[in-house]
Structures are given as structure tokens and as C-alpha cells.
């Protein structure tokens, strides 16, 4: 079982479509259940919108799942539900942005990043418009909903688009940092989220957050673990387990995939003995590939990409999938030990 998603053992996925956790549900029909504490998207955007008239929020029939319904409640005149029509939503967001608004368009990553890749490239990035694409339930976090609902390719697709900032939220606090920082950013941003129940890494939104600047969470010399998004938390757990074996890890939260923080990668290559990337994504095209592109200009050192191999994930609850792909702290620990013992693949 995954230490990251222990509560997923039964995968009662009511929260996917209602935005609430089954543990908090009442039995009475129509009674609002308590929302998952980590999914702060709607609340934070509503707070920002109290002081910024440019913000508009749109979704594609997932207002409950992504909690943008909380924005709707507080700013109904700036909330638009486009129904199950993501392409229209993304292009309309670009139109809004061309008239001075800062629209946040939210849907599952599989339908926002993958289905709408062309709209993101052509309508948002090519004209360099301040559209914010909020891609939630990314990676394999939707578990047994299957490949149609997984997004293991979106980082690779998004990071090849010129001028598109691609950033992954580690937890709720970092999502707040990303949303706040986005208000001063002139171009488009792809914001990749987990499923909103990601364990906290940060006590509070890091005050020095900046796009393209990785956050060094732990210092060590034997290996650098570079993780992004929901994999940062189990990576920190792996660093603890490695430390118990006498291996000291540097841990980087590489929240921004594009533009990538090349300085931190080069520093890791120069100052530590090995590098392992960890991502909830196909190891082709994502964080690991991006880091490799920097390392090709550095002196050789042991390096491996840890993530999902070039395949579609099997059916299963998220916890089982994370364990299968060794994306929990035990799996990351063993993968790091393999790398340090000379096993690259």
C-alpha cells in the first residue's frame, strides 16, 4: 500500500465528481458533505477575485470535482460552466484573455491538457495570452477509471509548446503560491494538480515562490532526488528511508517543468554523486526527459528517470498503481538504491 494515498485502499471515488470525501459524507440525501481540505482551488481564486476584477473561472461540468463551485458561489457573474465541451472552453478563455480578463479554465488533465492540446498551443500560447489552464486529477490519480482518465503524457505535450509555463502543484499550499504568482504573469500557464487530497509538504505557501525556481527541500551529497507534483511527498519519505541507510539525499521540488531550473540541475550534477528524477508521468517526455536535456551538457554521473514506463497503466485503485510503478516512498527508495549500485534502468 502506498504511504501517499493510504486512504485510497478502497477507492471510494465519490470525491471525483462531487469534490467531497466519502469519510465526511452524511447519509441524508442532499446534505452537503465536507469538502476535501486540500482542494482549495475555488476558495483561493474567489479570495483573489475579491481584489482583482480580471479573474474569471470556467469549467466543463466539473465545478464540484474541482471546487470551482466555491468561486461560483462568491462571484457568479464571473463563473461560466461550459458543459462537457473543453475545446470550446479553452478557446473561449483565450478570447476572454484577449479582452483583458485573466481566465482560469479547469478540467481533468486528460481532457484539458491532452484533448485540448491544439487549442492551448494555437489559441493560448501562440498569441501569448494570460490563460490559466488548471489540469486536475493528473497522472494515474484517477486509478480504475482507466487510461481515458489518466494523463501520463500531458507534461511532454505541454512543455514543447513555446512560451507556455508548465507548473505542478506539490500540495495545497504550493497551489496557493502558484495561483497568487500567476496574477503577475503575462503569458499562459498550465497548472497540473493531483486529485486534491495530496498530503501537505509545505506548512504555508512558500513566500519566495517563483516560476522556474526549484525549491531545495533537503540537503545531501550522495544523490539528488528531483521530483514534481504529488511525487514530492513520497520522495521526501524516501529520503528519510535512505538516510536511515546512511545515504544523504538532496531533494528538489521541481515544480516548474517549463521553463526548467537548469541552474539547480547543474548544481546537483556538480555537487552530488547521482541524480534520480521522480514523476507521475510517462518517463518519455516529462520531468526526467527535461532534466536529461540539461545533463547532456554536464559531466557524466549516474542518472535515471523514475516514473511510468512507456505503456498504459493497468486497471486498479490509485494506491495499487503507485505501488505497481514504485512511486511510493518504498519504491522510490529501492529505485535510488538500484541507481547507486549501478543499475540505470
Amino acid at each position, binding site marked *: 500500500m502506498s504511504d501517499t494515498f493510504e486512504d485510497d485502499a478502497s477507492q471510494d471515488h465519490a470525491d471525483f465528481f462531487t469534490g467531497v470525501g466519502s469519510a465526511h459524507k452524511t447519509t441524508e440525501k442532499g446534505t452537503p458533505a465536507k469538502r476535501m481540505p486540500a482542494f482549495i482551488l475555488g476558495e483561493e481564486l474567489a479570495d483573489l477575485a475579491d481584489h482583482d476584477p480580471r479573474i474569471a473561472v470556467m469549467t466543463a461540468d466539473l465545478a464540484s470535482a474541482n471546487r470551482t463551485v466555491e468561486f461560483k458561489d462568491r462571484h457568479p457573474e464571473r463563473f461560466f460552466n461550459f458543459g462537457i465541451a473543453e475545446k470550446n472552453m479553452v478557446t473561449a478563455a483565450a478570447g476572454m484573455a484577449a479582452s483583458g480578463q485573466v481566465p482560469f479554465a479547469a478540467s481533468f488533465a486528460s481532457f484539458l491538457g491532452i484533448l485540448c492540446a491544439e487549442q492551448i498551443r*494555437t489559441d493560448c500560447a501562440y498569441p501569448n495570452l494570460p490563460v490559466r489552464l488548471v489540469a486536475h486529477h493528473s497522472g494515474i490519480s484517477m486509478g480504475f477509471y482507466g487510461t481515458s482518465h489518466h494523463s501520463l503524457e500531458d507534461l511532454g505535450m505541454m512543455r514543447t509548446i513555446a512560451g507556455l509555463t508548465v507548473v505542478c502543484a506539490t500540495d495545497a499550499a504550493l497551489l496557493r503560491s502558484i495561483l497568487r504568482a500567476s496574477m503577475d504573469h503575462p503569458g499562459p500557464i498550465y497548472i497540473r494538480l493531483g486529485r486534491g487530497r495530496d498530503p501537505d509538504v509545505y506548512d504555508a505557501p512558500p513566500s519566495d515562490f517563483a516560476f522556474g525556481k526549484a525549491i531545495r527541500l533537503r540537503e545531501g551529497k550522495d544523490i539528488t532526488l528531483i521530483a514534481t507534483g504529488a511525487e514530492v511527498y513520497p520522495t521526501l519519505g524516501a529520503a528519510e528511508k535512505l538516510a536511515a541507510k546512511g545515504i544523504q539525499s538532496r531533494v528538489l521540488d521541481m515544480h516548474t517543468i517549463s521553463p526548467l531550473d537548469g541552474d539547480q540541475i547543474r548544481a546537483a550534477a556538480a555537487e552530488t554523486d547521482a541524480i534520480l528524477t521522480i514523476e507521475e508521468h510517462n518517463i518519455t517526455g516529462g520531468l526526467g526527459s527535461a532534466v536529461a536535456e540539461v545533463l547532456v551538457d554536464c559531466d557524466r554521473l549516474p542518472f535515471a528517470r523514475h516514473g511510468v514506463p512507456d505503456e498504459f497503466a493497468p486497471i486498479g485503485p490509485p494506491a495499487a498503481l503507485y505501488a505497481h510503478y514504485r512511486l511510493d516512498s518504498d519504491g522510490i527508495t529501492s529505485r535510488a538504491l538500484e541507481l547507486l549500485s549501478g543499475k540505470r534502468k
Partner: protein
Amino acid sequence: MKTETHTPNRQQGRNISTDFLADRAKFVRKETVRLSRIAGAGHYSSTFSAAELLVALYYAKLQIKPLEPDWPDRDRFVLSKGHAAIGLYPILADLGFYDAELLDQYTRFGSPFGDHPDMKKVTGVDFSSGSLGHGLSVGVGLALAARMQARTHRVYCMLGDGELAEGQIWEAAMSAAHFELGSLVVIVDRNGLCIDGTTEDVMSVEPLTDRFESFGWKTRRIDGHNFDQIIETLDALPPAGVGRPTVIIADTIKGRGVEMMEGALNWHVGNLEGEDYDVVMAELDAGLKPPTWEHPK
């Protein structure tokens, strides 16, 4: 580089004579032929079908300020069929958005002017286009932004008939009616042809009026080469505000104005050179003759 605003050399306003508009449509067609020769290829026939519609909008209807191109209350125009940009560029120069001499660099390396329009490079272009099927969604976003900002301008969007096969058009049509975007006006350049044949052979779009009506739109169907009908229809638009969006289905002829191009599939993209160039320019100078092609029924 982005084009810079330029002193306007043409009047723009509502009470402009049909003769003047016809002269400007001739200008658009001749510029299309001239610029295509610079590029070595051009979308002649898709631009010729839209010439009267573009001219009527820009010289007689759109509330715009060429010397203040970012005026927030201006009417917006989205050329969803971006391959007709070669007809839009000369109009924008003529109205004073930029120096007409810039057009001599059409499609040459580093030019602001490509086959499809780039809003970041060409002053007066409200949105980039080229990938068919997107423009109506852009219009939805522009109209929603106007509503949030309590502005009363209109948003015009010109669609080709071939691109109506794109599913996103109908997503956008559904949402425009749902959001009651009464400020949104679509003009369909119903020229009858896409690249591989007639729309009805390749992917039928009719009954077009019924389809838009069933999506909750107000509809008008007119002769898209008849200035009187175009102007009358544009003048009769309902007030911009909350209400049903409007579609004007303009029956046109692909290649209109050059006999060998009218209804001809092989002139979607082409190149006129040498004697052919001179012959076509002379034909355009002589003015429009009765059309030589009709939509297949």
C-alpha cells in the same frame, strides 16, 4: 516586428455609397492578386467570396478607431477562416491601421503578414486564426468578456462553410445561445466549396438555417455579394446585449469576380503569373459581371 498605426486615408462610417463599397471590393480582389504573386501562392477564391462581406463590415459597420487600435469599446472581428487574411490586410492598411507599403513584404522573411493573420504582429487584427473551427469560440470569449466589463460593443465572427464540419463550431454555437450572447454576430461565407469538392459532397452542412435555429440562434440568409442586402441586414441587427445570437448566412460564390475561378476547385490555392496575371487584373478592373456558377442544389 508589429505594424504601427498610420494616418488613415479613407473614410469609415455608416453612410457610404454602394459605388464606393464596390470600388473597395475591387481593391480587395486586386490586392489579393498582387500580394499572391509576391508569395507565389494565394487563397484567391476564398477571399473573393468574402470580399463584399469584409468591405461592408470594415467600411460601413464596425465601430473601430484605426488610430486607437486597442480602444476597449471597439467592435471585435474574428476572421475564423483565416486563409482570407490576404483580403483583410489591404483593408486595414487602407483604413490607416498601418502603412500600405508594408504589404509589399507580404509573406517575405520576417514580415508581419503571413497567409494566416497573427494578432501579435498585425495591428487591427483582434485574434489570430488559421486552425479552422476555433473562431466562434473566440467570439464567445470576447462576448463574455464584454459582458463582464459592462461594454456594449458587438463581436463579429466570419466563418467559412467548410469549417462548419468542425465539432468545436457547434460546441461554441450551443454555448453562445446558452449564455444569451446577443452581441455575437456570425457571418457564414457560404461559398459552397471546400478543398476537395462542394461542401454537400464532402460533408454536408445544410440545412444550415434550420441547424442554427435549432441551436437557438436568430438567422438571416442573404446574397453575400449584394451590398444593399448586406448593409440592410447589418443595420437591422438587434441591440447588442442579452439575447439570442445572430447568424447571417451569406450565400456567395467561391472565386467570385474572376470567371475561371468561380466555382472552380483548382483555385483554392493558386498562383497567377505573367500574362494570366495581367488578364485577371484587367477582368477585375472591368468590374463584376453576372456570376458564371451557381450552388448545386
